[in-house]
């Protein structure tokens, strides 16, 4: 058939029922159109069909024939398209970029009718495209602003503090960034995992000769050449690549079909020789009963890990007490890019191209599973279409590596949305009992916390959650008596892993609810109660750590105070008229330790200047959309004294760059940023030595010519600067005492919302977020992180609940759309952290933590109802009101 794509008629030899998205990507190699679900739910595949936006995944090729198809690849040549792309770049509207092509096309359909759309029109136009990174705010801004970008106004340049457009942004807005599913070596075999439909079962595999006759091989546990297991902790490698007769969750992988794509995709699992013996599922309550099935032999009580903290200092007398039980459910990362990549054996080495947040950890896992040395494994991170913690664990990497290793052929895999959701890690569901007490004057006296966290079938990051939660449990306040226990419990649920905040968002829901109650009991304003108790520089935390610097919570609260007063007054005025809609204002605070908990987590950065003037930044930090590529370059540029544009970037590839550690725990700006700063300082010193120039000398580098204070200087040999930074910490002892983190991010957020007291629905009106980030290296990117974190916090509070087998798609599992994120005011507080690069700390996770508690606080303020379980679905809000 002949398809008219971007103005050209193209003959395609495809099945009439092939999805247009697949035809564009696989047949026409127009991989700018992305696929996130194949079900119309995410909009990543949005293209224009006769000018109207459609999901290419829902259009059969037969119905596209004879119609004008327009994809992201056509935008640059169209003045309106180019202007829109420039506006996206300028506003930081693309973070990971996986939703960007769909967003651009949806926006094009609108701009073609109306070049200066209203905010409501812009939101409606992108209502069908999900973005998990940005919170939509900057996308809406970019769409409305596109008309100003016809002769693209120059964006800001510069080092630390500049709103520099992301350095990897041009590829993202052009649809040219290479995500895991966007490329594969020619002739790659297709790998398709076979997963357990049961939460808990034994199984036997029969004879697979019938498959072999169709050119398909079923890889199983027996085919794994090295250890058939992986896991985050070196001593707890408890997750098999392919299960061996026993599955522990729905989605557990029992094998993988390998062969030509069409043959593999034609297999129906019912034809496979698998005999299942289902076993009763084990939830948290069942797991702790005497005689419960032991899910992993090395943990006979099914308790994977327990974290504790106990401290008792001088305290005023207790006058008021508040306590409660709080529950949260599984939350899905819902990155728009499902897991994808390819592997290739090259002699006795293996190369894996895949989406990841932790290439060096992937390398260890792959080496172990293949039984080869780590330096025989090369991990090349693809562009990562969102991670949020979910791509810290390996997913496809071990199995495609095994397949490529034993067959010697290149192998690729792309998971479906359903498979991604069923198999990937989740946020730990929590069941938290907590009790807080304060003195008559409002000073906190005591906080007791006991939390059980459903760590699911495998350990993943469960011990990290159990370790991090007790430290953060009492919140960013001075509390003389703290006792906190957090347990990670094995069940037959999906493995819970790392998800933006490592358990802290769940704990914050409990802690902030109790502090609201205490404030009410002592008749204090909720903000002032927090201000009274807020940690400040010089205070000692419950772990015995004295925070000497950069404790900006009081400053955050000071900045919020006028907003708080205004929003409260607005609510009071609104509520003076009776009606079913009640307005409420809520507040919550948070703190977040940057980097690993009491454990080494170094990063190494390297910058070289070659004799031909090439300045190369070897940066192993994976930018999963949060902006580390840009931010680290800005830091290096500032410290070196050359503009960011002078750098050639070599990014996260385990062969070419040093280990920067994983992109998690909000650590890249702080840890890798400091390493980048030190590398740049070292290189600058080497450069200055060339002419014995003074510290303050001015450098320039143009057309390969290095100048020091204006005078050209030849570069005799490649100069190098290496920086390594490992934040100083002291491991926690049995009582949870030590210095778990070198620095902390602090924040407070206010939520203003309306509750329909007859329907239980919540409509957000505004969020005001004050964040102490130490130093905003790139304010646009910091704002983007805060917007995105808030959007995820909104999801946690109001709509997200993953139920295995029931919400395994983006239709039933709801994440916020462009219509669900209200206007957000951001106040950046910069209390410099002396250890950080130019004073910077982290922002990735802090942004999410206070949002849900602030929303719950506002619901309580509006209705008097306290939600003890999230998400606050309408029926739960109504129930809580009774």
């Amino acid at each position, binding site marked *: 058939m002949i398809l008219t794509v971007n103005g050209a008629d193209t003959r395609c030899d495809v099945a009439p*029922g092939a999805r247009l998205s697949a035809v564009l990507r696989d047949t026409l190699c127009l991989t700018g159109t992305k696929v996130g679900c*194949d079900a119309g739910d995410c909009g990543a595949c949005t293209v224009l069909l006769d000018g109207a936006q*459609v999901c290419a995944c829902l259009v059969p090729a037969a119905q596209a024939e004879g119609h004008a198809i327009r994809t992201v690849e056509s935008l640059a040549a169209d003045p309106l398209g180019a202007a829109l792309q420039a506006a996206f770049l300028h506003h930081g509207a693309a973070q990971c970029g996986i939703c960007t092509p769909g967003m651009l096309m949806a926006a094009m359909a609108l701009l073609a009718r109306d070049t200066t759309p209203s905010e409501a029109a812009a939101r409606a136009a992108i209502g069908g495209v999900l973005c998990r990174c940005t919170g939509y705010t900057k996308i809406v801004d970019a769409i409305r602003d596109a008309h100003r970008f016809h002769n693209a106004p120059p964006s800001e340049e510069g080092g630390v503090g500049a709103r520099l457009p992301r350095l990897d942004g041009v590829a993202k807005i052009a649809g040219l960034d290479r995500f895991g599913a966007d490329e594969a070596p020619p002739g790659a075999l297709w790998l398709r995992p076979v997963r357990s439909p049961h939460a808990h079962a034994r199984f036997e595999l029969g004879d697979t000769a019938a498959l072999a006759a169709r050119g398909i091989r079923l890889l199983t546990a027996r085919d794994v050449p090295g250890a058939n297991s992986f896991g985050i902790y070196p001593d707890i490698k408890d997750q098999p690549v392919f299960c061996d007769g026993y599955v522990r969750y729905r989605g557990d992988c029992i094998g993988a079909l390998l062969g030509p794509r069409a043959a593999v995709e034609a297999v*129906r*699992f019912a034809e496979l020789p698998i005999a299942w013996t289902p076993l009763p599922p084990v939830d948290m309550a069942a797991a702790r009963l005497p005689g419960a099935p032991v899910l992993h032999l090395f943990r006979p009580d099914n308790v994977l890990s327990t974290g504790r903290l106990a401290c008792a200092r001088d305290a005023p007398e207790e006058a008021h007490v508040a306590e409660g039980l709080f529950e949260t459910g599984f939350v899905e990362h819902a990155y728009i890019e499902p897991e994808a990549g390819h592997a290739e054996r090259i002699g006795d080495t293996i190369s894996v191209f895949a989406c990841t947040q932790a290439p060096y950890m992937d390398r260890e896992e792959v080496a172990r599973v293949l039984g080869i040395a780590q330096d025989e494994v090369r991990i090349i991170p693809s562009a990562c279409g969102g991670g949020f913690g979910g791509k810290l664990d390996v997913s496809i990497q071990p199995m495609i590596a095994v397949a490529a290793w034993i067959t010697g052929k290149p192998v690729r895999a792309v998971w479906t949305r359903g498979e991604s959701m069923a198999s990937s890690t989740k946020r730990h569901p929590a069941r938290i009992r907590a009790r807080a007490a304060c003195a008559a004057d409002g000073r906190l006296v005591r906080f007791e916390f006991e939390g059980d966290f459903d760590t699911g079938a495998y350990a993943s990051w469960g011990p990290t959650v159990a370790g991090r939660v007790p430290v953060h449990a009492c919140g960013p306040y001075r509390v003389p008596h703290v006792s906190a226990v957090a347990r990670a419990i094995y069940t037959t649920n999906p493995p819970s892993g790392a998800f933006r905040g490592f358990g802290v968002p769940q704990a914050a829901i409990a802690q902030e609810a109790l502090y609201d109650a205490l404030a009410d009991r002592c008749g204090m304003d909720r903000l002032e109660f927090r201000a009274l108790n807020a940690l400040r520089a010089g205070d000692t935390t419950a772990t015995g750590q004295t925070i000497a610097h950069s404790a900006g919570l009081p400053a955050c609260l000071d900045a919020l105070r006028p907003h708080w007063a205004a929003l409260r007054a607005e609510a009071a005025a609104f509520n003076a008229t009776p009606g079913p809609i009640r307005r409420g204002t809520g507040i919550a605070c948070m703190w977040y330790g940057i980097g690993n908990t009491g454990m080494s987590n170094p990063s190494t950065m390297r910058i070289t200047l070659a004799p031909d003037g090439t300045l190369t930044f070897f940066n192993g930090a994976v930018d999963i959309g949060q902006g580390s590529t840009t931010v680290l370059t800005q830091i290096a540029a500032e410290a070196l004294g050359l503009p960011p544009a002078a750098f050639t970037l070599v990014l996260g590839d385990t062969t070419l760059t040093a280990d920067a550690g994983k992109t998690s725990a909000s650590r890249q700006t702080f840890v890798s940023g400091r390493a980048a700063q030190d590398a740049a300082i070292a290189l600058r010193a080497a450069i200055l030595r060339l002419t014995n120039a003074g510290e303050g000398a001015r450098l320039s580098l143009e057309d390969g010519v290095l100048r020091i204070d204006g005078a050209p200087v030849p570069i005799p040999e490649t100069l190098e600067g290496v920086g390594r930074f490992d934040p100083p910490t002291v491991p926690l002892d049995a009582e949870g005492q030590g210095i778990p983190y070198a620095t902390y991010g602090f924040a407070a957020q206010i939520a203003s919302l309306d509750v329909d007291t007859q329907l239980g629905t919540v409509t957000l009106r505004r969020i005001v977020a004050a964040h102490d980030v130490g130093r905003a290296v790139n304010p646009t990117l910091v704002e983007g992180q805060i917007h995105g974190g808030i959007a995820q916090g909104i999801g946690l509070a*109001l*709509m997200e609940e993953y139920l295995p087998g029931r919400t*395994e798609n983006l239709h039933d599992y709801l994440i916020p759309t462009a219509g669900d994120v209200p206007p957000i005011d951001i106040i950046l507080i910069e209390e410099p952290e002396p250890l950080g690069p130019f004073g910077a700390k982290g922002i990735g996770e802090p942004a999410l933590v206070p949002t849900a508690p602030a929303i719950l606080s506002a619901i309580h303020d509006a209705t008097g109802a306290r939600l003890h379980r999230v998400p606050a679905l309408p029926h739960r809000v109504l129930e809580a009101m009774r």
Partner: protein
Amino acid sequence: MSTIWLQPKTLPEALAMLAADPALTPFAGGTDLYPAQAARFAWGEALPEAILDLGALPEFWGIAADATQWRIGAGATWAQLRDAALPAEFDVLRAASCQVGGAQIQNRGTIGGNLCNASPAADGVPPLLALDAAVELASLRGTRTLPLGKFLLGNRQTERAPDELLTAVLVPHRAGDLRSGFEKLGARHYLVISIVMVAAMVRMEAGRIAEAAIAVGACSAVAQRLPALEAALRGSRPGEVAVTPGQLDHLAPIDDARATGAYRREAALVLVRRLLARLALPEALVA
């Protein structure tokens, strides 16, 4: 994905193909079919083998009026229903069309597909029930017309015989002071399946409700009209007759991931009350 894909160019040709192989799955906009396939594919389940693509049938498109009724082609998309110049009684359908999925789904999903898919949460059903719509079914054996309420039998079940296609939705003409509206309740703003939705059409005469038609969706396997309430409202002044829980007794809402059955029942009552209050206000005429 499917091995057989037939794309007839005329309705008779389509009906002949379907008569020859009633196992063919009709395919309109694909916005229900493709997602269902994706879910099955993820778990290695069987997919429909043979498709009858209705995309090229000229008889399917267009919205037109004859002397007695409006004829909405089964292939009318939500976007067409949203943008068509239809009289006030269709406000209810227009409002529903604006809230189905996002713009992409509105541009592709069809009313015929929505009815044939017969989801309890299909947003097209309550408005059309309130408008006393009928469906036209065609096969080589002939054409028949069924009231929508008779066509829908249950969750994903309809009266459609395997050799029949739904060709049009028929809505009788009405005259007078007509007001209609739609209330959809979901847990997010765009792209959301209804927890409850309510559609209503009222005809006012000299300040009284001469006729009321109210339907509630997602609270039973098939959306239901509220006959007791409609009867009670007839001849009353707006606000005079209270909506009582008893008038919703025949609904049978279920518990699912989106809400509890008890909640649905309660929310339906609230939405019916609000919608009626809104329609009784003269401003509703301009909205």
